[in-house]
Structure formats: structure tokens, C-alpha cells
């Protein structure tokens, strides 16, 4: 019995059989966000070819940026390469939590150059003020997209969705789902709330999305409060399923999620489409970076380079349904699909020749759409105000009548318990006195 116990203990403490830390690469990514068989698993082989060194990859997944950030910031976890969203990259840069990527790859070509200049420009906006940091030294993009309406054309016309105001349209009451992501919803609704000012040229979209003021939060709250009864639910992941089952007609969601839903729905014969309203939208990015406590920065840099290879970008895109930041001739060829009738102006991404590409416009929006999109930023000090506004909109707070009711009920229970205990004690004392009387 003891022997079994000790051998089991020893067996388990020895697992997993880790190669030493210098030959391990710890990757921390979103779930379902890489092609595991064809890209991730082939990395050690490629790394050996390029550098002659062995590496073992430990791949872990996180659910939201904040838990990943906490583990690194507070827990000092030694992940080698992580894939946060753009606002977290911005925050980490400001707090000095990222290491620069070593692009000295020896004989290996530097595929990180293939990131579209459009993306690199947007990234540069994330540089902390006055620091002069070149963001591209610290992060290389992975996937990007926009936010828009995923809709079911059987119930909703594209013309109804030309504005974000469709969220309050009573025609769709009870059939609208909105992503429970306050940052994204804020940035599109602020463009809607200030659409007149934008049209008059008083303020730019970039300004509205990047600089959050109490006044803007107030205006967005008004818009959302009006829409609150119209919206069926604030969801994180089941919106796509509701759409494919036809219960929801519209879902405010990200382009990558929308593409997944469109593909899934096609398999069961439901058609879904995606549109970005005219007021504009945001562009969001994920990017690979090396956190401060990483211990294998060489393999980390090579890993990031490896993911930028066009064939790997294509494999990843096909597996997860999102669109990569890499813009190379191979990708342009992959994106150009003759079966698609409409063309898009993708010169902002692929260069001057790509003005008429038969591309899937959910993944590769036309230049006209991109011009109306702004990059989201970290809310910084305004995060508490935003969260408070978001909670009020979702109706998570107790209003005063509920509070009073709850307090009254709790008091009633307490009083009841106390009175009963007092009653029991009185009974017991009476019985004791009776017994004493009998003894006499």
C-alpha cells in the first residue's frame, strides 16, 4: 500500500517529462487560435533546421486578456510568447512588461517584414506617449478584423443595417444579440452617437475612439439605454449558435467570429452575412509578443517569425477562420477567389496593384470601410467609469427598491431566529424551575 502510494507520487511529480527550460518554449494563446497539427507541431522541426537546436513546445490557452495579464504582472509567470489584444499590448508597453523581439535570425529570412504596412502604421499608434518606442520592435501582428453586424438576410435586409441605430429598431426586438465586450460596443456606439459631428468634420473617428471622456461615455450610455429593451441578450460565445439556429437575426460581433458562424451555418443550409455600418467601426488586432519574464527569447523570436511565413499564415487562416496581418503575393493569390463576384479595393493592405480583388469582404473589407474604422485603445483611467456604465446598461445593478426589499427580508429572518431562540430559552428556564419545584 505504501509502496504504491510513493511510486504514484514520484511518477506524478516527475511528469511532464520536461526538457530543460532552455530548450522549452512556452506559448500562451487564445483557444482554437492556431492550426495545431500543421503549424504548431511542425515548429520544433523547422527550428532544428534553422538553428540546429531542439525545442519542446508547451502550449496553453487562456480565456480573456486580463487573466493572462494578471498571471504575468502579479504571478511573474515565465511564458515565452503570448498573443494579447491590441489594448493589452498598449498597456504592457506602458508598464514595461514586454521584451523586444530579436530579429537577428541569421540565415533565416525575416518574414515579419511581410506584415502589411497598414497594420504596422496602426500599431505605431499604440506607442506610449513620449517614449519613442517603435511598436513593431515589440510585437508582430497575428490576426485582425472589424466589428459589425452578423445578420440573417431572410429576416433582416442589409439596408436596415446601414446604421448602428438598428440596435434600437423595434422591428428586431428580441432578436438582437450583442457581444458582452464593453470596449468594442463603446467604440462603435460612440461613432453612432457622434455621427452628425463626424459628418460635419468637428471630430475624427480616431479621436472619438482613442480618447474617452465622461461626456462621450454619457452619450453612449444614452444610446445603449434606449436599445436595452430591444436587445435579447449580451453574449460572449453563444450568439453564433443562436444565429446558426435562426433564433437570433442580428449579432453585433467581430468579423472573425462572424466568418466562423457563416461557415457553420452554411453546413446546415442557413445563410448568414456580415456588414459594417456606414458610421464606421473599429479595427482590432491580436499580436504576438514576448513578456518580460520569458526565458527562451530566442525560440520565441523564431516562433513569431515562423508564424509570419505566408504558408503558415494561410494554414492558420483556414483553420481558425480569422484573417492574418501578413500581406504577401501568396496571400493575395489565396484571397483572390474567382467565385466571388464583387471586388474590393485592397490597396491599403496588399499594395497598389490590389485595387480589384475578388475577396471575401468579411475578411478583407474594402478600402471604403477601412477608412471609416478606428483603432481601439486601452481605456486606462477611464476603465472604472466604462465598467460602471456597462453594468448600468446591462442592468446588473440593484435599484433601491430591490435593496430595501432584500434588507427587510434579511432583517425579518434575523428577528425570527432571535425570537425563536429567546422563546426556547424561556421554555428551558421554565422547565428547570418546574424541576426544581418538584425536587423540593
Amino acid at each position: 500500500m505504501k509502496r504504491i502510494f510513493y511510486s504514484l507520487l514520484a511518477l506524478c511529480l516527475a511528469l511532464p517529462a520536461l526538457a530543460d527550460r532552455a530548450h522549452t518554449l512556452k506559448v500562451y494563446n487564445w483557444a482554437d487560435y492556431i492550426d495545431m497539427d500543421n503549424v504548431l507541431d511542425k515548429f520544433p522541426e523547422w527550428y532544428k533546421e534553422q538553428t540546429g537546436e531542439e525545442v519542446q513546445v508547451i502550449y496553453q490557452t487562456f480565456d480573456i486578456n486580463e487573466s493572462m495579464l494578471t498571471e504575468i504582472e502579479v504571478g511573474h509567470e515565465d511564458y515565452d510568447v503570448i498573443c494579447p489584444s491590441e489594448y493589452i499590448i498598449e498597456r504592457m508597453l506602458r508598464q514595461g512588461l514586454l521584451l523586444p523581439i530579436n530579429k537577428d535570425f541569421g540565415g533565416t529570412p525575416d518574414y515579419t517584414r511581410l506584415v502589411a504596412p497598414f497594420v504596422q502604421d496602426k500599431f505605431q499608434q499604440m506607442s506610449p506617449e513620449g517614449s519613442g518606442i517603435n511598436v513593431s520592435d515589440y510585437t508582430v501582428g497575428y490576426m485582425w478584423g472589424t466589428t459589425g453586424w452578423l445578420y440573417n438576410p431572410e429576416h433582416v435586409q442589409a439596408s436596415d443595417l446601414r446604421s448602428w441605430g438598428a440596435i434600437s429598431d423595434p422591428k428586431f426586438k428580441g432578436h438582437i444579440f450583442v457581444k458582452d465586450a464593453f470596449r468594442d460596443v463603446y467604440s462603435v456606439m460612440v461613432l453612432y452617437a457622434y455621427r452628425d459631428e463626424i459628418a460635419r468634420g468637428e471630430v475624427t473617428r480616431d479621436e472619438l475612439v482613442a480618447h474617452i471622456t465622461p461626456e462621450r461615455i454619457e452619450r453612449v450610455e444614452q444610446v445603449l439605454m434606449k436599445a436595452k429593451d430591444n436587445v435579447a441578450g449580451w453574449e460572449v460565445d453563444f450568439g453564433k449558435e443562436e444565429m446558426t439556429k435562426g433564433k437570433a437575426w442580428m449579432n453585433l460581433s467581430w468579423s472573425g467570429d462572424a466568418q466562423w458562424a457563416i461557415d457553420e451555418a452554411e453546413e446546415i443550409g442557413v445563410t448568414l452575412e456580415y456588414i459594417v455600418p456606414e458610421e464606421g467601426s473599429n479595427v482590432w488586432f491580436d499580436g504576438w509578443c514576448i513578456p518580460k519574464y520569458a526565458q527562451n527569447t530566442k525560440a520565441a523570436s523564431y516562433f513569431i517569425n515562423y508564424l509570419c511565413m505566408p504558408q503558415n499564415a494561410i494554414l492558420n487562416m483556414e483553420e481558425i477562420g480569422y484573417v492574418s496581418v501578413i500581406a504577401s503575393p501568396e496571400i493575395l493569390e489565396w484571397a483572390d477567389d474567382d467565385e466571388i463576384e464583387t471586388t474590393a479595393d485592397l490597396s491599403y493592405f496588399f499594395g497598389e496593384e490590389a485595387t480589384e480583388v475578388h475577396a471575401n469582404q468579411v475578411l478583407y473589407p474594402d478600402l471604403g470601410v477601412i477608412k471609416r474604422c478606428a483603432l481601439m485603445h486601452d481605456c486606462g483611467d477611464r476603465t472604472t467609469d466604462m465598467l460602471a456604465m456597462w453594468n448600468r446598461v446591462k442592468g446588473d445593478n440593484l435599484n433601491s427598491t430591490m435593496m430595501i426589499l432584500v434588507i427587510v427580508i434579511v432583517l425579518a429572518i434575523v428577528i425570527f431566529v432571535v425570537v425563536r431562540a429567546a422563546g426556547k430559552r424561556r421554555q428551558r428556564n421554565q422547565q428547570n424551575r418546574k424541576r426544581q419545584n418538584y425536587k423540593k
Partner: protein
Amino acid sequence: MNNNAVKNNIERRDLLSRVAGQTYLWLLLVVLYAPILLIIIFSFTKSKVFGNWTGFTFGLYENLLTGYDTASQVRVDPNLYRAMFYTAVIAVIAALLSTLLGTLAAIGIYNLRQRTRRAVTFLNSVPMINPDIITGISLFLLFVFLGISRGLLTVVIAHVVFCTPYVVLSVMPRLTKMNPNIYEAALDLGATPAQALRKVLVPELWPGMVSGFILSLTLSIDDFGVTFFTKGSNGLETLSTFIYADARKGGLTPELRPLFSLIFLTILVLLVIMNIRSMRQAKKAGR
């Protein structure tokens, strides 16, 4: 005349209360088991979106057991199997350790004076009342403070922390019911304290220890909050943390549906066997 009316009334009330009781019972059972039944039903269809029925097939079971989806030439996420393995390993180790610790603790508490005993019993109940998240975060901060890198060891420690009080609670009733003179009698008859512990006390406490062990197993497999914060960056995942990250995008991996069904079936079979055995033992004792 009056008697008949009264009897009818009583009968009608009996019938009513029986029907109401049965309805309530069935309603409760449906609410409890409907989700599980749904998962079992949909484990026999290969759609990615839960709720879509795309034809009856054992495909998902095949995928789960072979780790490979022949239709789409894609591996089932290997992290799922590692998560299953670690869930089982952590549960068994944590349950063993906390049963050991809890039994010793219960014996110790039993031998304290009344006042200290009440204080320690109160302390014992604190980890039980504490929300998971609080335990998880405080252990996380403690490990960071002490510089212990988080991984399998910290998860096992954390699980022992919240399982031990339940073992103590399972073993204490057996101690209080036990005849306190057995131990002294054993010593009088020439046993060393260690022998007395092994051959007299443990058999007496054995049912309490077993139920404490099973309870710890359940709690450990079920746990999310504590494991989430103490698992570290070495690729350690349990089933609950794996599912948590998996649910984020694209819905739950379809292969989880047969996994849940199999786990449910296993537990159901185990419970039925245990119940049959205890019924048989009761019958034997009754004769």
C-alpha cells in the same frame, strides 16, 4: 353519512397530496437530469454547434477514443487528454493526502479539551465556507510571495487545503460514536500505539475515511476557481480549466459531449452497484 363524507374528504386529500408530491418529484428530476440527457442525446450527432442534429452517428465516440477525426483529418485536441489525465491524477493524490491528513486531524481534535475543540472545529469549517475564488487567489498570492513556482505541486497542495476539512467532518461522527475504551483496551492487551492505530482505530473509522475520500475526489474533480489560479505556466490543465478556455471561441469541442456522457454513465453504474451492495448487506444483517 358524516363518516362517509369525512372518509371521502380524507381520500381526496390523500390522492391530491400524492399527485402533488409525485408531480413535484418528477419536476425536480426533470430539471436535474434534462441537461445531462440533452448532452447524452447530442453526443450521438456530429454537429459543431450544440443543438443542431445532423444525423445519428457514433462518430464523436470514435473521435474521442482514437484521438483522431478521420472525416476532417484533424487530431482531437491532445490537451483534452492531458487535462483528463491530470484531473484524475490530481484528484487521486489530493484525496489520498487529505484523507490521511483529515483522519489524523479528526483524531487529534477528538482528544482536545472542550473549549479548544470548539475553536479548532470552527477553524476547520472556514475553508469550507470560503468561496473558491478567495481560496484560489489567496493561495496564488501566497505562492508568489514565497517564490514557489506554480505547477502540479501547488495544485495538489491547494486541493488538499480545501478537501481536508470535509474529511475531518466525515470522520468525526465515527469517532464520537466509537466506544472510547477500545483504544485503551488494545494498549492494555499489549499493542503499541502504532499497532493500536492501525488495527483498531482505522478499521473503526474506515467508513468515515472512505466517504471522506470519495468526497475529496468529487470536490477535486469539480474544482475550478482554485485550480485556475494555481496551475501555473507549465502546460498543466484540468478538465475544468480546459473547458473554460475552450468555451471561449467556437463553442465547446464536440468531443466533450461523449466524454460527459461516459463520465455520467460510469458514476451512475458505480452508484447502482454500491446501492445494490448495501441493500444486500442490509438484507443479510436483517436476517
